[in-house]
């Protein structure tokens, strides 16, 4: 997904000289092609995220199209007020590219777990939140952002899920088995749902990409008795909350069950896959929920 992002940004720069790229001193081994091509339009702001966001807004308000890059919680929580006041209130054309989200930096510890970011970004007026699951969705999301402009937030992981068939940037059907149960995953945790289906009685699977086209999401929810939401995020304000809001808005009847962090820090040390298992976010946790539903 990161390589896809880099290639897309290079493509945008060829089309539009006003495209600029800002990093908070991160991206070693990944951003060099951008740095080489962008020259003075690539700016490393140093380890100073508050200023990175204000600076990016200033550029954008002066006719630039800004992609602002960092990892983990740094481009969201560290500079939340700058995002709110400087980017969102001014409707500045700034896209925050966030790599290493969710539990991707598992063993590095909780300071590097970005598990509240969707919630924070979703509550910002004007902010468009995108959580692609795979390289193709990343491409489509960036194309959309290039076209309609920021403020936008794109939550990525280095490697995407094994899904090649997205058709849109809202919600994609990944597998359809005519089940009355579906898993809706947001981000690369989609892989856990795909893995579940490989060895178990199959359910339908979706990838939810953006958090602001409610009607399309409602169309999916309407089809199911049970929806299991899957996210590497706190249960509050992320995917589960969003689906509940949509359900309520459209008076739908499906039961929504969350697989998410339940208001806890993932303080156990482990790789992303191990933490997903430990905190009940993986294929096994999905299996347990499906079995519980089928017992009813």
């Amino acid at each position, binding site marked *: 997904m990161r390589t896809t992002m880099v290639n897309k940004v290079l493509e945008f720069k060829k089309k539009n000289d006003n495209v600029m790229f800002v990093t908070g001193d991160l991206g070693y081994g990944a951003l060099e092609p951008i740095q080489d091509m962008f020259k003075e339009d690539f*700016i490393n702001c140093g380890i100073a995220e*508050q200023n990175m966001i204000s600076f990016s807004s*200033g550029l954008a308000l*002066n006719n630039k199209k800004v992609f602002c890059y960092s990892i983990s919680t740094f481009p969201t929580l560290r500079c939340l007020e700058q995002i709110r006041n400087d980017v969102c209130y001014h409707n500045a054309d700034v896209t925050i590219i966030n790599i290493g989200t969710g539990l991707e930096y598992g063993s590095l510890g909780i300071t590097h777990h970005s598990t509240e970011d969707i919630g924070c970004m979703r509550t910002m007026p004007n902010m468009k939140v995108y959580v692609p699951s795979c390289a193709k969705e990343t491409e489509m999301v960036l194309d959309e952002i290039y076209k309609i402009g920021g403020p936008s937030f794109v939550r990525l992981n280095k490697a995407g899920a094994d899904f090649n068939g997205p058709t849109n940037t809202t919600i994609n059907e990944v597998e359809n088995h005519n089940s009355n149960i579906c898993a809706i995953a947001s981000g690369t945790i989609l892989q856990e749902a795909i893995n579940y289906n490989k060895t178990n009685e199959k359910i339908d699977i979706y990838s939810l990409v953006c958090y602001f086209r409610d009607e399309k999401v409602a169309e999916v929810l309407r089809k199911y008795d049970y929806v299991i939401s899957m996210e590497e995020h706190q249960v509050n304000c992320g995917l589960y909350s969003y689906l509940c809001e949509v359900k309520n808005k459209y008076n739908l009847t499906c039961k929504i069950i969350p697989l998410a962090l339940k208001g806890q820090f993932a303080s156990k040390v482990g790789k992303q896959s191990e933490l997903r298992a430990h905190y009940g976010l993986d294929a096994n946790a999905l299996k347990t929920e499906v079995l519980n539903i089928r017992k009813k």
Partner: protein
Amino acid sequence: MDFEKLKTMAKNMKINEIKMVCKSKASHIGAILSVSDILAVLYGDVMNVNKSNFNSPERDIFILSKGHAGVAQYCALAEMGILDKSILDGYYTYGSDLSGHVSHKVPGVEVSTGALGHGLGLAVGYAYAFKIDNKPNQVYVVLGDGECNEGSVWEAIMLAVQLKLDNLHVVIDNNKMQALGFTKDIIDMGNLAEKFKAFNCNVEECDGHNLRALSNVLKTKKTGVPTVVVAHTVKGKGVSFMENNILWHYRNPSEENAQTAIKEIEEYYANYNG
């Protein structure tokens, strides 16, 4: 510079500011009076911003980072003819765009501020965009000295120096007071001019109420580095009972206070030759 014009502008601004803050029962009159002479000189004499170009790409950019003094910017814009004076009546009231902290919904205001420590980073972004596009526009940003407690100010100035932004002009309204008292008793930042010099800025100092000195200093620049003007000011300047009194960071003037204050401002500028 047209000294008499600037003097009249500063006086009119302060009188309107006192009236507006009194009528609306708003706060921050001390900080507003502290920064007004700086804004009068910037708008009236230094910046390329006027009634006919304030929406055009040729204009200079001004950011009031100490957004709580927003009334001073509204009044400067009114004096410049950019803002209709009748709009000032809506300040702080239901349905108006003139919020207490400065708002970009108001014609002539580039950005909204109010949370401190945002304006300089925004200004650095504007200035760099002008720089790489080889445009002559200058960027001016006014901060409070108390605002310099914010770490983001120093994040921004480091980048401005790194990017060699000689089109960036930072003015510190150095009134030596902040929300709960004198800065030396809260966070004593020592000599701010020396601090900005240590960050490799071109630093100038002047009396922030001396219109001639401001006019000279605010026009200075040095190739390859941002300029920081530390303007030494007095909170509540020109009104005897407000000067250096933290109460007027909060208290709104009564009708009687306002009348006395306006009289003192008129006398101050009648006798002013600085």
